[in-house]
């Protein structure tokens, strides 16, 4: 399903079923005039649905660029099937060694860069919450959307797949935020939570953020960001406190 997050950012919501709970493995479309830029390409697991969603969302004209937050398989699994290896579609990736990441023809984006991709100005940010070292967060200056793979995720109930944060009765539940980060960013058990909070505060101070767009969670609207951050900080403290090195 495709859901509008901001006027020109659409969320292509895809879910992986963990039995009782679901986890998003999503992607986003940026519409810039006649051009469409895809942020992440999703998993091979959802290839048919993603291909169909993009076909409909672009009225059959297809994509003009693909930007990868990182080359992990659930994010980069459809680069070729969506034409990312063809001349007509610009491929932008954060890898420092694209050959070793299987993306030898990608245009490189580095942390700290600001690039124009099909008329869209994007900043690439050092991500305080990620798994792979070459990951970048991506800030879209047009709509003020921060793409935050693999942080800011959450599990959700099967009937909440297309929810944005404001659709929940009391925003995204703290327990779902906690369980996602505990399971997926395992290294959080070693952190000093205050160091990550400081890094996140710096990003949210520097950029005007109208929405947060996670790959593995429900999008968070601007008015819900403070509540989400509060729950996230509780999560960081809880994960660190629960792990005892003995």
């Amino acid at each position, binding site marked *: 399903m495709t859901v509008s997050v901001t006027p020109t950012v659409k969320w292509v919501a895809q879910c992986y079923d963990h039995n009782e709970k679901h986890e998003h493995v999503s992607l986003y479309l940026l519409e810039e005039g006649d051009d469409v830029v895809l942020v992440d390409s999703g998993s091979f*697991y959802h290839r048919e649905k993603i291909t169909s969603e993009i076909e409909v969302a672009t009225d059959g004209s297809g994509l003009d660029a693909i930007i990868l937050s990182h080359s992990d398989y659930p994010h980069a699994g459809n680069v070729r099937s969506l034409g990312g290896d063809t001349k007509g579609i610009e491929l932008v990736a954060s890898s420092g060694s694209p050959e070793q990441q299987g993306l030898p023809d990608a245009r490189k984006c580095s942390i700290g860069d600001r690039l124009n991709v099909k008329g869209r100005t994007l900043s690439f940010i050092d991500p305080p919450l990620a798994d792979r070292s070459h990951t970048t967060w991506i800030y879209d200056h047009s709509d003020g959307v921060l793409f935050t793979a693999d942080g800011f995720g959450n599990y959700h109930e099967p009937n909440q797949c297309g929810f944005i944060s404001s659709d929940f009765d009391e925003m995204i539940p703290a327990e779902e935020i906690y369980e996602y980060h505990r399971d997926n960013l395992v290294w959080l058990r070693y952190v000093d939570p205050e160091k990550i909070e400081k890094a996140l505060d710096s990003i949210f101070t520097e950029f005007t953020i109208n929405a947060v767009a996670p790959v593995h969670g429900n999008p968070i609207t601007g008015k819900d960001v403070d509540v989400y951050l509060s729950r996230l900080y509780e999560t960081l403290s809880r994960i660190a406190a629960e792990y005892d090195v003995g």
Partner: protein
Amino acid sequence: MNREIAPGIHWIYEAGSDRTEQFELAERKPDWYESGREAYVPQCAYLVEGDNETLLFDTLSPASTDQILDAIDELVGTRGLDYLVVSHPDVPHAGNTYAILEEHSETTLVAPAYGNDHELYKLDESLQVAEGDSIDLGNRVAEFHEATFLDAPVSVWMTEQKTETLFPVDWMGFPHLDEESLLFVDELDGTFDASRLVEFHGRVLFWYQYVDVEKTNAEIDNLIEKFDPEIIAPAHGLVIRENASEYMELMKDVTQTIDNQGRIGTLG
């Protein structure tokens, strides 16, 4: 490029690209770097031969598909490859998994039991291993361990009991200079410079910039006590075969240094 690190354990080495420019080594002049030299952070796979069965740990990157297929043929010959262990489904570690399985229908795919999204990595039908699980190869046993310092949640470390070799995957990697490819650390000129370890971990384990140093170093003490290895065979560095635990001790200084100076950059 291969080298036997102990009888029946083979180091399969992929240099990757020269990192001199990416790491801005000429400008930054880190202690470990010599001006005018090329620098590499390799991808390493390891092939373990038992009396009865053979096991490959990791696959090199997709840039080296032919190399890993040729190395398997050269090292196992007609014996075949019995197990392919993927330490974690990261492209430079697992990028040739299906090329290998296509060539070797006899091979059992082994993957970490950790994490909860194996289907997204096509690992759901693999043999999944966790702490305490082992594979008996005949005269030697590969034992699996929860990965301590990692990136992906679907990760596993391995030890080989006969030689007391620890395979710590993304931990304890470091760059080397052009003429040091496939050298053991004890064969390097001069004293090993711990700033090599800082260069790697300040990039790859980017989250070291956020750790509680005391807690992390206590975990390193736990690892030294648990493994006390004779050999350390990292995925992104040269093999350590002398005083291995002393290099693990060095990692506590690395933690402190990165806490002081922050992240160095990326690797990718």
